């Protein structure tokens, strides 16, 4: 990152020259406006992002100073900077946090720039809607994605088990798991990771039952009985050895490298469509993706096209218009789109999407096709989760799933604790 800044400074010097030369034709706000950009992600994302900032600077003048961190480090840093009145101009934002930041004016509404510097003519309507809080536009989606089950197709071939398709159900999962156990490949590889404490898996399962994790007014969208059945379902799968053991699953602490799929302990794992690229880089086996399992054959509606992440403009930014101009460039410019690929999800601008799709490699193609062909799996976009959703996930969903797994709680007890605990957290926040 240090070398990056050095290179930035060098670029700032050169771009100032370019800007000076072009100053005559540039709007006033673009002249010498240095923007700060912060995002989470790995090196691959950073390389693509900086490719676009360089392109932007060359075309528009005004340097864009980038900084990136891992997800876990990103939010404390952003919150601290925001509290100190020192937030960057352009902030990568997540669906989980956008309401919290918008309500506190830590990010700015962009409605005044729409049609001006912010061009959204061929932008996907559902993705635009996802960036709104209380009717105002606070975030521009950088790509659409969906939850997806990653499939280690090589392992399935080895086990002689037919790999799942988008039609698969939880019953199929049970059958596959048993077949996997009798095949006993790679020292007892299981069919799937323990997804009982994977929040998106629970959400998807609830949506198929016509419920949701959260309602539009930020309350719990399901009953105790739902939660109990969820834990019972996974207790059954665990007992049959369809999913990995709880002490193996507990080794997954978040990083891609620690997941059951990469560790070779499970052939299936719930994830997101844009992450196939990242996972494929870590395993030798060939990966594919299908939807999450259906609760019964033909039942759909669990999935949705989620804005994978947004760019928002800092509420205290002195260069809101320039920052918005950069965001518009980032999502609309075809050359920028070619650099970015689908690493942040499927581009939301139709023109960019058309230009990008022929240039993609296989892993990216799989992701693009999956999101484009969700069919009846697709349901409506749920409202942004309440601010305390992160705490419900960390304090309850993950812990309770483990407690059932290790036999410290019955599914009935865990279901009850989830509902009462979540209600308490939601009312507190």
């Amino acid at each position, binding site marked *: 990152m240090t070398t990056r800044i050095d290179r930035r400074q060098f670029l700032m010097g050169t771009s100032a020259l370019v800007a000076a030369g072009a100053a005559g034709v540039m709007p006033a706000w673009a002249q010498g406006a240095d923007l700060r950009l912060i995002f989470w992600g790995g090196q691959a994302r950073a390389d693509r992002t900086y490719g676009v900032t360089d392109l932007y600077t060359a075309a528009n003048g005004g340097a864009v100073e980038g900084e990136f961190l891992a997800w876990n480090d990103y939010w404390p840093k952003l919150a601290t900077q925001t509290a100190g009145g020192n937030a960057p101009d352009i902030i990568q934002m997540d669906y989980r946090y956008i309401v919290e930041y918008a309500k506190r004016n830590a990010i700015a509404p962009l409605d005044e720039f729409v049609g001006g510097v912010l061009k959204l003519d061929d932008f996907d309507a559902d993705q635009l809607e996802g960036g709104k809080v209380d009717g105002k536009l606070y975030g521009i989606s950088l790509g659409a994605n969906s939850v997806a089950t990653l499939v280690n197709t090589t392992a399935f071939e080895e086990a002689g088990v037919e790999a799942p398709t988008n039609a698969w159900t939880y019953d199929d999962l049970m059958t596959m798991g048993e077949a996997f156990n009798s095949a006993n490949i790679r020292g007892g590889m299981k069919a799937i990771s323990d997804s009982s404490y994977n929040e998106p898996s629970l959400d998807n399962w609830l949506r198929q039952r016509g419920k949701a994790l959260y309602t539009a007014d930020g309350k719990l969208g399901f009953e105790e009985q739902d939660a109990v059945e969820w834990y019972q379902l996974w207790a059954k799968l665990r007992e049959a050895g369809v999913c990995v053991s709880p002490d193996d699953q507990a080794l997954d*602490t978040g990083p891609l490298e620690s997941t059951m799929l990469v560790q070779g302990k499970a052939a299936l794992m719930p994830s997101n469509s844009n992450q196939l690229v990242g996972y494929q880089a870590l395993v030798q086996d060939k990966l594919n993706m299908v939807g999450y399992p259906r609760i019964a054959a033909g039942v759909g509606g669990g999935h949705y096209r989620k804005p994978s992440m947004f760019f928002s403009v800092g509420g205290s930014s002195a260069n809101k218009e320039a920052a918005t101009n950069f965001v518009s460039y980032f999502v609309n410019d075809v050359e920028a789109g070619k650099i970015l690929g689908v690493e942040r999800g499927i581009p939301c601008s139709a023109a960019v999407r058309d230009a990008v799709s022929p240039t993609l490699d296989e892993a990216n193609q799989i992701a693009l096709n999956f999101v484009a062909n969700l069919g009846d799996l697709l349901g409506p976009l749920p409202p942004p989760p309440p601010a305390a959703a992160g705490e419900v996930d960390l304090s309850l969903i993950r812990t309770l799933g483990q407690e059932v797994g290790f036999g410290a709680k019955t599914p009935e007890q865990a279901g009850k604790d989830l509902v009462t605990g979540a209600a308490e957290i939601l009312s507190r926040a």
Partner: protein
Amino acid sequence: MTARSLESGAPARERAASPSLWARIWQNDAPGYLFLLPWLIGFFGLTIGPIISSLYLSFTDFDLLTDPNWVGASNYVRMFTNDPKFLASMRVTMVFVIFSVPLKLAFALAVAMLLNRGMRGLPLYRALFYLPSLLGASVAIAILWRQIFAREGLVNDFLSIFGIVGPSWISTPQYSLWTIIILAVWQFGSPMIIFLAGLRQIPQDMYEAASLDGASKWRQFVKITLPLLTPVVFFNAIIQTIEAFKSFTPAFIISGGTGNPINSTLFYTLYLYQEAFGFFRMGYASALAWVLLALVGLFTAFSFLTSKYWVHYDD
């Protein structure tokens, strides 16, 4: 230095009652304070200032992004009446302190006594044994620990020699905290160095006299070494207890910041961090921090109060 010069000089100055009193103080002490200035600025700006503001924030609902609102003692009330995670994390930290500190001190003393026998290459061994203390709190070691205590890790490889099939120690709730306690004990270097220095202070003629009187090695240890070493034991115990209460990094890295499995490694400090930077409840986290401070203060005060019954300062 300042205090002493004021004490001794005060009566004389009063008698003189000269208008030059302040001038003299200025002359005598100003250069000292001037030299201290960089440290003082840091101390007041970066230590005392934040500590006081955190005391204020502990009575507010500060969430980092909006201005704090005064909520009275409700953070503290909630902590003690309606927060199972507070109790759970307190339990984890207490177990950690109660087991890791005595084990670490015992281990440090044992190694120090071994090294105190005037062996060849002592500086080398001393450095080697001190090494874990330099590395122990680091991220790399915490990651290494995950590997050692995993299902296919070093520990289970060793156990398999005896036909024992061990679990994945690091991710099984009953054992995960113990792997972190072992990690703490392994970092015995700094108390060991201090013990070693303490052992060197014990006059050899005492041992010679005891041997002549026919005292066994064990009796010599109990009757000479330990009593004369108590000031050092006391010092080490206090420092290590405070360190143990503050322990954060190993649990954070080993559990990926979650305190899992099933909150078995949810150290108090980790819970505090989650509340502060995970859920943005800075007010509540500040209150947690002050409770920890009070607790450490109580422990230390208790140690000092009881010290006169077991620490021997006959110099």
